[in-house]
């Protein structure tokens, strides 16, 4: 079946088996491998992308559910001139990553959180990102990065 959607500003149509997950469409059909798969039980958030501006775990959606939607992945976060999104920059600056496997999902979830709540507290960030797991950092530098980015947004 056909699924038509916009990914990072470009329209695509794919002929897919109905069981295809959105994350499979993104990684295998669109070839955008920045979105990671860490669990396949919607527990880790490594697969987070924006669907019509809101963070979703792309392993929990069928590709057909994104038909007609506007999807942004980590590859679409930098501006056209290559400038990193403030959340990306803050993850770099605050050492909010080690292996970096959780990072794209964290950046997507965090930027969606900031869009909703531009000046969150430490606790708002923790509650907002609780669905994203990181096994390396112990989370503190990620929280710091999100708070730094929120300052940069203002």
């Amino acid at each position, binding site marked *: 079946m056909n699924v038509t959607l916009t990914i990072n500003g470009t329209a695509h149509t794919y002929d897919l088996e109905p069981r295809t997950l959105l994350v499979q469409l993104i990684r295998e059909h669109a070839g955008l*491998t920045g979105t*990671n798969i860490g669990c396949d039980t919607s527990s*880790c958030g490594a697969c987070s992308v924006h669907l019509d501006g809101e963070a979703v775990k792309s392993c929990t959606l069928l590709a057909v559910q994104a038909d007609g939607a506007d999807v942004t992945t980590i590859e679409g976060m930098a501006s056209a001139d290559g400038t990193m999104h403030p959340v990306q920059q803050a993850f770099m600056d605050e050492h909010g990553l*080690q*292996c970096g496997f959780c990072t*794209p999902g964290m950046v997507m979830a965090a930027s969606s959180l900031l869009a909703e709540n531009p000046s969150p507290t430490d606790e708002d960030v923790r509650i907002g990102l609780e669905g994203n797991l990181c*096994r390396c950092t112990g989370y503190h530098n990620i929280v710091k990065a999100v708070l730094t980015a929120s300052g940069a947004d203002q």
Partner: protein
Amino acid sequence: MTVLDAPSAIRPGTLGDSVLRPDGTAKVQGSFEFCSDLNAEGCVWGATLRSPHPYARIRSIDVSAAWRVPGVLAVITADDVPGQANYGLIVPDQPVFAADVVRYVGEPIAAVAGDDPEVCRRALAAIEVDYDVLEPLIDAEAALDPNTPAIHPDGNVISSQPVIHGDRDATGDVVVEATYEVGMQDQAFLGLEAALAIPDPGGRGLEVYVATQWMHEDRRQMADCLGLDPESVRLVLGGVGGAFGAREDISLQIHTSLLALRLGRPVRMAYDRAESFLGHVHRHPATMWMRHHATADGQLVKVESRMVFDGGAYASTSEAVLLNAVTQAPGPYRCPNAVIEGHAVRTNHLPCGAMRGFGVVQVCFAHESQMDKLADACGVDPWELRLQNAMHTGDTTITGQVVHNVAPVEECLRATAALPLPDEPVGGHPRADGSADVMKTPGGAGRTTDASDVVRGIGWGVSMKNLMYSAGFDDYSTARCRLADGVVTLKFATVEVGQGFVTLAGQIARSVLGVDDVVLGRIDTQVGSAGSTSASRQTWMSGGAVAAACRAVRDRLFLHVAEQHDVDPGQLEIDGTDVRDEASGWRIPVVDASAGVDIDETVEYRHPATEPLDENGQGDCHVGFVFVAHRAVVDVDPELGLVKVVQIATAQDVGRALNPLSITGQIEGGVAQGLGLAVMEEIIQTDGIIRNGNFTDYLLPTFLDMPDVVATLIEQPDPLAPLGAKGVGEPPTISSTPAIVAAIRDALRQVDGVGRPLDRVPVRPADICLPARASASSTTG
């Protein structure tokens, strides 16, 4: 986290500076290629058939139906392994594919290749295996019994190691004993196992991209089983999404390679999370009886212990894990006498091997619990007792080895005690509107805890950990440094798993050579071995190798400069980004001095040799040790058995802080894993069958579980370490666990004056809230 030591003025990018990751930009932009992202022209997928039984005889395997699945390209079993049938890190005891017996749930039996993962799934389902299901051996103690039938041709005992030191009959005025248990923990790296194998034309070799920890050891085992020369197996590191020990053993490397060689085309394999739980080794569950003897005022006299580590079905690194455990059984304390007996055995559980802390995590939970018991029995404060017994440089371990390292146990204890306690009130700060902040109470958003029930406790944990490989292993690392026109290129096979060696390598080169631009070559087997990224060894070992290679290049640069400018090469030094003549003060920028030169040096760094233990477990078996103290503050709901870890304070012996930012990252991440073992994480197996092999049921610490961490780094450069620095990866995980459990015990004692033994981790709600079980422990004296 707050690190309370301010760095002094340091040239940006050099040692001591909090340099950011060179791969950070790619990682935040999603362009960093993890192994699971790799693909190649004409690549097909592979998948593995695994045993559903913990123990069974294979009567027959019929793959004919699998071949009939449309899109299937290859089906292989044990018959298709051209080289050695078995592999293993220490002994080759694990079949590439089970042929006659399966010994754990998840053991590989066959592999298939097909056009896509769905084809592979159908093909696996079509393979018919006829099993004669046997009674699994799941009791590690029973495995030790010589009357128990062996589940493996090598027998059920993988390794036994005594340590007898001093007067084995010594006794103390005060004696405390108990039996402790540690559950099976999963490394739970986020980036799942993946590999891409690309065969050479003609099929005589191949290139394999893999996320691993030890390139050359993988290559050795792969070459043996593939029946190829090691040189024909070229490994390239695929981006690694965390490791924590789980990638030290072979998982899908050989299977992927066999399929690729068979087909003559690229094959990739990738595990999902459920398969990952079956496909890599875990932290050994252990049962440890310990009896501590002390003088009436709390001076350790003797430690006795008998410990049994459940290695699961295959040996992996069990022998080395056990060695760490028995040799460090008393912890970082002076202990004149010891009688220790340790065993690692085979069962039909999932195989166990390396995980952060490697054997020391288990004994640390036991010895620190014992120190608290001893403090209690002697009427001494737990912190005082530890201070009183703390090991110092020059002391002797229970293997008779003199600790030549810097051993700042006392400093770690004092510095941790000086760190501020949390200002958070018991049960958490109320919200601005006065309502209780449920996220700060035990159990969080379950909202069932009544803040007025919450009790706070404080506990201590202190640990020592051996660095590098032990017991006579020829442990070395190789690095190549090239200086051409002011640009340094480094090449090594040191695996970057996220720990930050790629950051450190650049810092070393900038410091030693006075350059700004450092290029890192691809991490592969086209240079000598770097050994494993484990045992907190790469800062010391590969750091030592990179530093030595850079110094060799620098010395040749000095000769060149001396010749060109008629100065004495012996008087030259690097000062900032200049070469400087100490005698005259004359200087020339390194960039200019190296114009037109091309210097290339490869160096192998070896640490001082160690020796195997003798029959009494005596000998200089370890290279060196690192130390750390943890203080945990927890809030407990004793009625519901819920715990919120409020704060971890820690002072860690780092030798020299080469990258404070990177160290704090290791500390915070390590503490999270220690917390996981203390109160959350355990792989549950019933009759040999895993019950929670997924991230819904295997609980990992989240943003909300993570306590505040206050840390201070104890910087006493270690003269034995090439850069003065010790590895930092493992200590944060080791004693944070017992500190948290001690804090829970402390809280519970306040409730009824007795508390609970909590002699098992992870501590479960039922251990906290049920009436105290008859304690397995006793106290006299």
